[in-house]
């Protein structure tokens, strides 16, 4: 299958605990996205990142705040 790059939002975390907390909350509340290995262009963060389509950014930013998830960085990139 050919890979098609799309604009994505990527959230990084200082610890895998926060990455897994993000996944747990998103699964429970049907929020968009999934865990991915941290992209090479991001040097900070733990080994996992959360990504979703760029159109989800505003909703996810709000979701992260509401669920008190500690995010280290927020990036927009073609993935």
């Amino acid at each position, binding site marked *: 299958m050919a890979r098609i790059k799309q604009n994505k939002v990527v959230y990084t975390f*200082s*610890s*895998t*605990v*926060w990455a*897994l*907390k993000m*996944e*747990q909350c998103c699964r429970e509340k049907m929020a968009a996205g999934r*865990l*991915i*290995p941290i992209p090479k262009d991001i040097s900070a*963060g*733990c*080994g*996992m990142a959360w990504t979703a389509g760029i159109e989800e950014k505003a909703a996810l930013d709000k979701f992260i705040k509401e669920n008190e998830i500690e995010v280290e960085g927020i990036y927009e990139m073609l993935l």
Partner: protein
Amino acid sequence: MIYLDSSATSFYRPPQVGEAVSRAINSIGNASRGVHEASLIGGRIVFETRQSLAELFHAEGPEQVAFTANATESLNMAIKGILNPGDRAVTTVMEHNSVLRPLYEMEKVGVSLQIIGTDASGRLDMASLEKAIGSGIKALFCTHASNLTGNVNDIRRIGRWCREKKVLFVVDASQTAGIFPIDMEKDCIDILCFTGHKGLMGPQGTGGICLGKGISIRPLVTGGSGIHTFDKEHPSCMPEALEAGTLNGHGIAGLKAAIEYILDTGIELIREKEQKLAKAFYEQVREIPGIRIYGDFSDENRVAIVSLNLGDEDSGEVSDWLSQNYNICTRAGGHCAPLMHKAFGTVEQGMVRFSFSGFNSMEDVSAAVNALKEF
């Protein structure tokens, strides 16, 4: 077989613990070492176990719970991770060697150590302890309960003294985690060390350390963390700071199932059943001529331990006789609690320790009582 050595390790466990280990051993990858499905299954199990432990101990959050192999490793981390040459520390004669030996090591590099004694029934000398917790003291290392007598310390009262005097309060919960309520916030606990295989009924090789808000300690071991690969230093964020190398994911899966059982059942119910069995045993054996029982039984709030001696008989011989003739499992000897034995004058003789689980029965109690009467 009648197993009465639950203070050494759980033998009777809810069946779901073994089932969870078996499932995990065939289904999980290395937690936090990737995001493929197998690794994520492991990662989720580990994360959810942290959440359960944080809930059980009222810890700040799941990130404050780090896994270790046992309480000894956790206590070594705490003791060697916060003390520096020139520091002053306080501990008690009730401690296990997992506290005492690392502290004696620290004494050799310039830490000064004060050890608080007990009364004739092995109860902590609270007046001396309160006096000792003062300015200039870095930390108090204190067990929640003696593994020899079953006497329980009032950690809430002690914790408040420590917080008031800005002394770090490090608690060894080896004998109480999963059985007695522990609230890191209300008990003012800065560092909680626990094992997974005793009261928590998880597999051997599981344990952990919970850090209070704002507490950081030097790691005992550094290395692979799955994060910040190209940094020369081990990550400082919790829990990775205290977790170098692959975790015991299979064991943690079993621990998770055990904690779920405990939270569903309720620790009060588990504790009451154990205490009832221990009390029934105590009430019957105290009538045996020449018996000596150690600990404060006027206090109902006890770990389900009854340690005793029959006259001057070698505790090892009594325990071996119970094992050989009745297939009753007890623990004899020093129980890694040298200062308590010195206090009781039982260094030579040791003690025979009977420790009960909620899965024991009154029939087990009667069998042990009758066997002792036959000796």
